[in-house]
Each structure stands twice: as structure tokens, then as C-alpha cells.
């Protein structure tokens, strides 16, 4: 069964999600990857306002390919999340409700997720053209000079994802391979 989830996520919704749940996400989210995270954290350190809301919001780790004429966005699959690990706890402590990416997270990120009741979703790496079809609006809202790494506000409909790590710290990356490995 695939659950439909509305973004941004209320605490009630995200606390009920469990590692391994298959979901389709609809609503508004924000994109940011390496360079944008670096700038967001620099703004926070200077005590300045961030260019987008954080509380209850979801950040998607993606650097899309350019939009051809007549398209909203180019291919837009997830990038590896671990590169954002040093930045993510500060955003989680500001109320970020979820992240979408691929790959492992640090113990510090998982602790910050548990502390704040947040969820880490996985999108399928390499399913980038397919994911682009679920994006109905895209607008650069900050750091335009970063090109593909600029912060974008996206509206998505039925974006396919899976709960990789839930708000209690349970990880599909631990339970999944343990279940299907030869030494299970």
C-alpha cells in the first residue's frame, strides 16, 4: 500500500510514518544541496533571516538539469544526502519536518531527527526524468547565482518516495538489507 502525504507535514503526520512505508508526496517543498546549505548555515550564524520557511517544511536534496523550452524543470532525482549531514541538524532544530535524498545519514542527523520528530525520505537515485513528471511548479527563490544548486520552491504531485529513517530513528537501511541478505 502506498500512502499519500501532504507537504508541508504536520507533526501528527510525520510521527505516524514508519521506516519502510511507501509514500507519494504532494504539496510544496524546497530544494537545497551542498552550496545552498553552506549559505543557509552562514546566514544562521550571522543571525540573518533565511530565504524560505523551515518549520514543518521538507527539503529535497537535488540539483536539477536545465529545463528545456516548454518544460518546468529538467531531470530532478535525489543526490547523496551525507554531504548535507554537517548542516542538517541546525535546520532540524528550527523545525524542518523532513528531508528527501538518497543514502546514509550520520548519527548526529538521526539524533536531531529523533529530537525534533522529523522524517528522512528516500527517492530513487536515477529515476530523475520520472520524478520530474511529478513536479508541477518550480521557482528559484534564492541564491540564483548557484545555478543548479539554487534554492527552488517546488510544487509536487504524487512524488514517489519511501521512508528511510523515521522519527524514532528506525532505518530501512538497517532492516532492509538484514532481511534480504544471505546471512539474515
Amino acid at each position, binding site marked *: 500500500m502506498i500512502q499519500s502525504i501532504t507537504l508541508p507535514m504536520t507533526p501528527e503526520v510525520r510521527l505516524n510514518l514508519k521506516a519502510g512505508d511507501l509514500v507519494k508526496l504532494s504539496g510544496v517543498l524546497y530544494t537545497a544541496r551542498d552550496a545552498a546549505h553552506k549559505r543557509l548555515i552562514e546566514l544562521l550564524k550571522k543571525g540573518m533571516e533565511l530565504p524560505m520557511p523551515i518549520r514543518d517544511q521538507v527539503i529535497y536534496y537535488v540539483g536539477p538539469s536545465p529545463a528545456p523550452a516548454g518544460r518546468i524543470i529538467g*531531470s530532478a532525482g535525489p543526490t547523496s544526502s551525507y554531504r548535507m549531514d554537517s548542516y542538517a541538524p541546525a535546520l532540524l532544530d528550527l523545525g524542518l519536518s523532513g528531508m528527501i535524498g538518497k543514502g546514509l545519514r550520520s548519527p548526529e542527523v538521526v539524533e536531531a531527527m529523533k529530537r525534533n520528530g522529523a522524517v528522512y525520505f528516500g527517492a530513487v537515485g*536515477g*529515476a530523475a526524468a520520472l520524478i520530474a513528471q511529478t513536479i508541477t511548479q518550480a521557482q528559484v527563490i534564492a541564491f540564483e547565482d548557484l545555478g543548479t544548486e539554487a534554492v527552488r520552491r517546488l510544487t509536487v504531485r504524487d512524488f514517489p518516495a519511501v521512508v528511510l529513517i523515521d522519527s524514532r530513528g528506525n532505518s*530501512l537501511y538497517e532492516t532492509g538489507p538484514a532481511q534480504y541478505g544471505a546471512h539474515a
Partner: protein
Amino acid sequence: MRTVDVSEISQAVRRMYLEMNVAVLPDVRGAVEKALADEASPAARYALSQIRDNYDVSARTGLPLCQDTGMAVLFITAGQDVHFAGGDLYQAVQQGVRDAYRDGYFRKSIVSEPLFDRKNTGDNCPAVIHLSLCPGEKVHILAMAKGFGSENMSRVFMLAPAAGEEGVLNAIVSAVRDAGPNPCPPVIVGVGIGGNFETAPLLAKKATARPLGVHHRDERYAALEKKALDRINALGIGASGIGGLTTALWVSAEYAPTHIAGMPVAVCICCHASRHGEVTL
């Protein structure tokens, strides 16, 4: 002697990159479809079916298979009786890459300096070019678009000769295990054994372009490839790393002569998109 105008090289390079970034190779598609048919995990099936459907969306829309359209890597083997005319061969290759990434609306992912500025060059250049000579008057080009999700998970091990076959298998399996979900499994694993610190990775990278299903001609290396694939798939990492039966689609190994004191092993991990093409001019 034969004269080849470098503009022919530019055009061939442009054509290859426009195609490989959008059209999945038939052997890769076949391997993914087999993995989907064999998969027991519902979550991995959800991932594999998206990977398969993504091929069709790319073909229909012209959007690249992955937003990371990679760093361009080219192995060019030129006959020594070829005279390149009309300009600088290296610049002609760069021009082909530049044209493809502009015309295909592919992402430009190259920065000019790695540590301090990290400023994007804006045209996905420079490409990495490995040029070698051979007898004759043909030019062969093997071109790859290598994403860095998987490139970052590739490894070099400088083993002692006494490590033997078990040492090589452990190196291969540990690289894939440590990579976990990061390189976008199911992956294709290229292994370079022998040579030295810089040539083992070249062997490994070239090995990722061997057609899936084709084993090494030396049956000892073919057996090594089979053992490595079985052990990797016993890890249970699965598609997207969320648990499943297919972690790697294939393992291809190549070897080269090496020093009496060493046994370098390079493990090049390639994501399931495996974008490459070849042409002989």
C-alpha cells in the same frame, strides 16, 4: 597515412553524449528488468519499477536519465598513421562535450578548482581525456558520462601478493558494502587488478563499459567475476539500498602486469544508469 579532420571528432563526441545521457543501453535495461522480475522485496520492486519506467520517460521526453549527467571521460585510441587536421584534437573533444551538454539541456557539473572557489565552468568542460596510440589508421573512442554518486564510492587497494584471490574478493565486496545505498544500486562493478597506483583505476573504469553478461576471456578471471557478483548480491543491499536481492547487475574484471611486490586492486563503482558509447572512425 589518413587525414581526419578534428571537426569529425567533435561531431562524434557530441552525438555520443546526446545519446548516452537519454537512451539507456539495451543490456542495462535487460539486466534491470531481470532484477525486477526476480526481486522478492516490495520496496526494492517499487524502486526497480521506477528505474525501468524512468527509461521510458527519458525516451519520450528527451530528459536525461539522471540529473547528474556526469563528468565526461573519454578513452581515445588513435592509429599512429592518422594525421589530425583542422585544429587541436583535445580542444575538438572538449567542443563536442560542450555542444552536447548545451544542446541536450544536460547539467553542467564541473568546477574549475576543487578546494577553494569551486566555480562552475558552465559548459561541463574540461572532459577527462585518455589518449593512446595503436597501429593503423583508425580512431576508436570510448566515451562515458560518470556521475559522482558512484564515483565517490570507488576505491583503490594496494594489496600484497599474498592476499591472493580471497584478498581481491574481500576488497571488491568491502567497497560495495561500504558504499551501501550511496552509489545508486543496483550497480555495475569494474575491477582493475595489477598495473600500478594509477593504471589499476583506469582498467577498472574501462571494465564498467564491458557489455553486461560478457565474462573475462580468461576463465580464472571469469570465475572471479562470478564469485564477486554472488558475494555482493548476498549482502542484501538491493536496489536503492533498501534491502533486496540485486545489489549489482554485473562485475567485470581486467588485469595488467604488475610489480613482484604488489597487487593493486581498483574497484570502480558505476550506478545503474551506466552511460557510455563507442565509435570507430
